[in-house]
């Protein structure tokens, strides 16, 4: 089966909520059914996407831009790949499965995420990992303001040094063999994340304005 692919048509100049384009809504539907589905904005899927493929457990977004919001909202399983930029609320309330964004993401990526793996190869907007409860969020690029705001548990893996956050405490630099397990889970992706190898990371715990059981790991060279 080929990946269920949503190719964005030209001309989108407003935000388009894509929360219904996940495995749980799309499984066992034909392309005609999917094209006729209504998005949150009352647009039909076919108004903005060309749909192809059949495997709803492997969803691909192509020719994307930052107007596409809520991709992977509450997804429970399967994989979503975004071959470009996306908008706000990527992976919000995610419950499982994995998302790979090959471009930049907007604000509040991973907001209230509870489980799964969310990987962003580009930059993120503000409030990345806000109120994240568990799971793993990786960012290769730069992160915006208010990183990990209200984050409760879970891991935020960064390749670029974050700006200092008042409510995160520095726990020092460490060799963490656990990262090898994490990298092995990334090996399933066609991504820069699959090339990571350093097991040395600077570790912060936070957000101490809340329960403070989350961690930010900034990867250092071995």
């Amino acid at each position, binding site marked *: 089966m080929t990946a269920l692919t949503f190719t964005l048509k030209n001309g989108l100049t407003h935000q388009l909520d894509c929360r219904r384009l996940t495995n749980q809504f799309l499984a066992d539907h034909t392309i005609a059914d999917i094209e006729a589905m209504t998005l949150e904005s009352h647009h039909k899927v076919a108004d903005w996407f060309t749909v192809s493929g059949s495997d709803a457990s492997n969803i691909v977004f192509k020719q994307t831009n930052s107007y596409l919001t809520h991709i992977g909202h509450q997804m429970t399983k399967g994989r979503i790949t975004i071959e470009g930029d996306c908008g706000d609320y990527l992976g919000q309330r995610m419950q499982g499965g994995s998302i790979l964004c090959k471009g930049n993401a907007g604000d509040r990526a991973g907001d209230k995420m509870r*489980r799964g*793996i969310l990987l962003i190869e580009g930059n993120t907007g503000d409030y990345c990992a806000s109120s994240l409860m*568990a799971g*793993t969020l990786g960012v290769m690029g730069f992160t915006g303001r208010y990183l990990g705001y209200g984050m409760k*548990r879970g*891991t935020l893996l960064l390749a670029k040094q974050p700006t200092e956050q008042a409510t995160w405490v520095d726990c020092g630099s*460490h*060799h*963490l*063999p*656990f990262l*090898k*397990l*994490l990298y*092995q*889970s990334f*090996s*399933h992706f066609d991504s820069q994340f699959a090339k990571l190898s350093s097991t040395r990371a600077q570790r912060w715990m936070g957000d101490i304005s809340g329960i403070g*059981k989350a*961690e930010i790991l900034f990867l250092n060279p071995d």
Partner: protein
Amino acid sequence: MKINGIQIDDTYAEAFNMRGTRVLITAQNLKWAYHAANAMTGFATSVIGCGVEAGIERELTEAQTPDGRPGVSILMFAMGSKVLMQQLETRMGQCVLTCPTAAAFSGIDSEDQISLGKNLRYFGDGYQIAKQLPDANGINQRYWRIPVMDGEFITQETTGMVRAIGGGNFLVLGKSQPQVLAACEAAIDAMKKLPNIIMPFPGGVVRSGSKVGSKYPKMFASTNDAFCPTLKGAVKTALDLDIESVMEIVIDGLTFEDIAFSMKVGIEAVCNLGADAGIQRISAGNYGGKLGPHLFKLHAILGGSS
């Protein structure tokens, strides 16, 4: 039946049902993986006094372990699932959690899962972190990261528990103690290369084979007098006059076939030494059906008539 001048008795080893599990132990290097594994499989020669029978199955390369570090796999067997769970948790806590750089992972798939680090996580006093990640096959596995003084202790939450067999065995009978021990060492060297089995006794060899029951009511096992050379004249002996020493190799394994094959490999290694090496006979621990339902017939295993 004779092989290389060594008589193979027309008898069988009698084995019993057990529950088994496999745990993969990794560490910064093999030296520390062995430290953890040796501790974990220590004092685990016989269920009679140790609760479990355990041993190191084989070494693992970096490519064979979940965390890409060198390691060893261990097999652990008990008479029931409750004891196995209890012993595994205790040994994990005292032998692997405590060992610098060591980590523990499930080494066997099964519908029956038993706790590996599930309860050990509380040692983290609230700072433990659960991670659910896909393994090399894309199947989600749950791990625990427990903060300890050398960094983090990583353990998978559970491992599989399977039905297994314990007590496969054969006896090596010879003219002198050094010759019998040398023959047993040759057998163990050959058998250690095989998967899915362990020889739980010291060095893989046991010199105190037992019979069921005793003249003392409180003892449910006692010395196998029929095979004790110094009692040849005093009891109904199974030994010829020129046999001066007997040693036993006991095997626990995951399946009947694993044990049978390991017995064949071990016996053949002994027979390769020939009668000139002082080995007279190969026999087996046969308890007349009192011990267990699995019968390993020596002649059948070695490909002869039974």
